[in-house]
């Protein structure tokens, strides 16, 4: 089994957009990480029910969105593009729906490539349906079977990149986030989630193996760290806690790469810079041009190390300019043009540093994904002997980095945030030495939320 023990990008200076030590080729002539940044456009339906009777309309909307987006790529001479089909739950529940839409999008991309030479690829991301049951039944049962069939159907219908936002451990993490409980967060992200990801990604890699033209992309701690980010955005939990969860999320998401993922990681995996430092594989990121889907405190810094630049998700609604997917595709293309021009002139470090410095002292969440912090957290992760220790090492390093920035007067925290930083540091220091002890200590609080057998425990 692959187990990362060193960094592919040990020098923060080398952690920069458009460049990944291990290139990934996919789709129709797309090469990721080779000193070019490409837009990754994701679009979804407007408010409408998704049923047998509305399915033809849904398909028509996806065709319209894809045509519009490819039209912008052609008009603006984008060097390439990834289109992501992120399933809505019924598309995974009905594997034939997911397959049908995959095939239609593939055809549009293929035609565009033949007509204009646009390098392009289709990423497909089924929904992790397994979380629909409480406690989640992760390794068998009808929900896993539907997901498995959907993964297979999407690869058979032409997905170039297969991804997922897996949710094993979320049942504990949600509760722990609301309680601000570091023990629960580490249990979820350092014990449960890596076990589930190892199991799941071995199977995703198997689905992709032997099918020419399909690669296992990557995962995202979206269900954990982006939940924390949004709770912090609403001032429901502290930003310092969300920043620490992001770092711990990197230790979790690495499991995908150790069990068959090849990259690019998912766009909503803001922990991507840490993953890239460890694996050297291309990452997709999103930030300022994803405001159609959600707000964040890291809109510029997120672009600093990306290889694909995404809008997360946009509904098919009309704007003054045209459809929202077209509008956001254009924004992404211009963002990428700027980064690619910087790369062409050898000025990528100048632009990267502007992207980083314009954000990182405004929020601890931005700080922990800046190149220097990402490499420091990555180094702590690979030096740790187990998934549990990786999670705690990532959290401790994030706390140290935030603390140093505060001490140096670069990052300002409110008294409430400072109190939380101290509390998190103290809670981390109180964690037991082994995951077995942690499982025992947290049994009363969280044991009823998950099935041990789902995690091979």
């Amino acid at each position, binding site marked *: 089994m692959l187990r990362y023990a060193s960094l592919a990008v040990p020098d923060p200076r080398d952690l920069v957009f458009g460049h990944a030590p291990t290139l990934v080729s996919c789709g129709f002539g797309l090469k990721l990480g080779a000193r070019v940044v490409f837009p990754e456009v994701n679009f979804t339906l407007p*408010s409408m029910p998704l049923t047998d009777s509305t399915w033809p309309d849904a398909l028509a909307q996806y065709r319209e969105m894809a045509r519009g987006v490819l039209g912008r790529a052609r008009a603006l001479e984008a060097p390439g593009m990834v289109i992501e089909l992120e399933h809505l739950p019924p598309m995974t529940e009905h594997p034939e729906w997911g397959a049908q839409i995959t095939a239609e999008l593939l055809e549009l991309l293929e035609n565009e490539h033949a007509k204009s030479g646009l390098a392009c690829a289709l990423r497909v991301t089924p929904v992790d349906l397994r979380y629909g049951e409480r406690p989640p039944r992760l390794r068998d049962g009808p929900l896993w079977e539907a997901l498995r069939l959907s993964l297979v159907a999407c690869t058979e219908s032409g997905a170039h990149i297969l991804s997922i936002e897996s949710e094993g451990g979320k049942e504990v993490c949600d509760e722990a986030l*609301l309680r601000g409980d570091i023990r629960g967060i580490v249990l979820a992200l350092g014990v449960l989630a890596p076990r589930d990801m190892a199991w799941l990604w071995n199977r995703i890699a198997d689905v992709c193996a032997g099918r020419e033209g399909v690669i296992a992309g990557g995962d995202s701690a979206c269900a954990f760290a982006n939940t924390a980010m949004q709770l912090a955005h*609403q001032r429901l939990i502290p930003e310092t806690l969300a920043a620490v969860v992001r770092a711990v999320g990197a230790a979790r998401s690495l499991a995908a790469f150790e069990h068959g993922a090849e990259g690019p990681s998912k766009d909503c995996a803001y922990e991507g810079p840490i993953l890239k430092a460890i694996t050297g594989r291309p990452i997709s990121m999103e930030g300022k041009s994803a405001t159609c889907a959600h707000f964040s405190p890291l809109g510029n810094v997120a672009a600093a190390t990306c290889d694909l630049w995404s809008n997360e998700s946009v509904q098919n609604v009309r704007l003054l300019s045209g459809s929202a997917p077209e509008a956001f595709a254009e924004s992404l293309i211009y963002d990428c043009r700027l980064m690619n021009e910087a790369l062409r002139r050898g000025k990528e470090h100048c632009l990267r540093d502007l992207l980083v410095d314009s954000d990182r002292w405004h929020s601890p969440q931005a700080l922990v994904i800046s190149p220097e912090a990402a490499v420091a957290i990555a180094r702590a992760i690979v030096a740790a002997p187990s998934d549990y220790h990786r999670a705690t090492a990532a959290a401790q390093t994030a706390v140290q980095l935030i603390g140093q920035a505060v001490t140096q007067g670069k990052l300002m925290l409110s*008294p409430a945030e400072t109190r939380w930083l101290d509390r998190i540091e103290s809670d981390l220091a109180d964690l037991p030495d082994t995951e077995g002890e942690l499982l025992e200590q947290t049994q009363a609080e969280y044991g009823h939320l998950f099935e041990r057998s789902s995690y091979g425990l």
Partner: protein
Amino acid sequence: MDLSILKQALIEGNDQTVADLTQRALDEDHSAETILSDALISGMEKVGELFEQGEYFVPELLLAARAMQGAMEVLRPLLAASDYQPLGKVVMGTVQGDLHDIGKKLVAMMLEDSDFEVIDLGTDVPPERFVEAVEESGAQLVGLSALLTTTIPAMEATVGALREAELPTQVKIMVGGAPVTSTFAQDIGADGYAPDASSAVALARRLMAP
């Protein structure tokens, strides 16, 4: 004993201390009603203020609420004898087709901690399950959550099912979730819309007011 000590322990979320001090206050002949109003409710109001001011976050709110629940276990037998009633019974759930949980869970926790009795049906809940739960529990309020643009139509279907059902009492319905707006809430016949968890608690109180 000065009840302000108990109030402060509650604000700090020290559950064991709060339970011990509640018992001590009773032993020193403070009435259960006085302890509830002057220390516990007053303490929770202060916690709410600190939350509104950004001094406290949800975890501190929940710690204080947990301490309050501990104190209520001590007081409830005495309050039951004196006509004390919880604020109301609420059925909560994420509508059919939608697996998103945390927003609804947060509202449920905050309602519980504000002295509502909550029946949480979980996620992907069909309209008929909401109706059954209201019939079984006699709940006066239903909270519906949705996060996907493709599942908010299920919210309308649920409101319709609840309105059409022959329920023993007229149930109030509140809705929320990222794609939901107050206009949408009005259009589908809900009684109220809350943009976030703390507004949901305030809305629930308003809807339950006599």
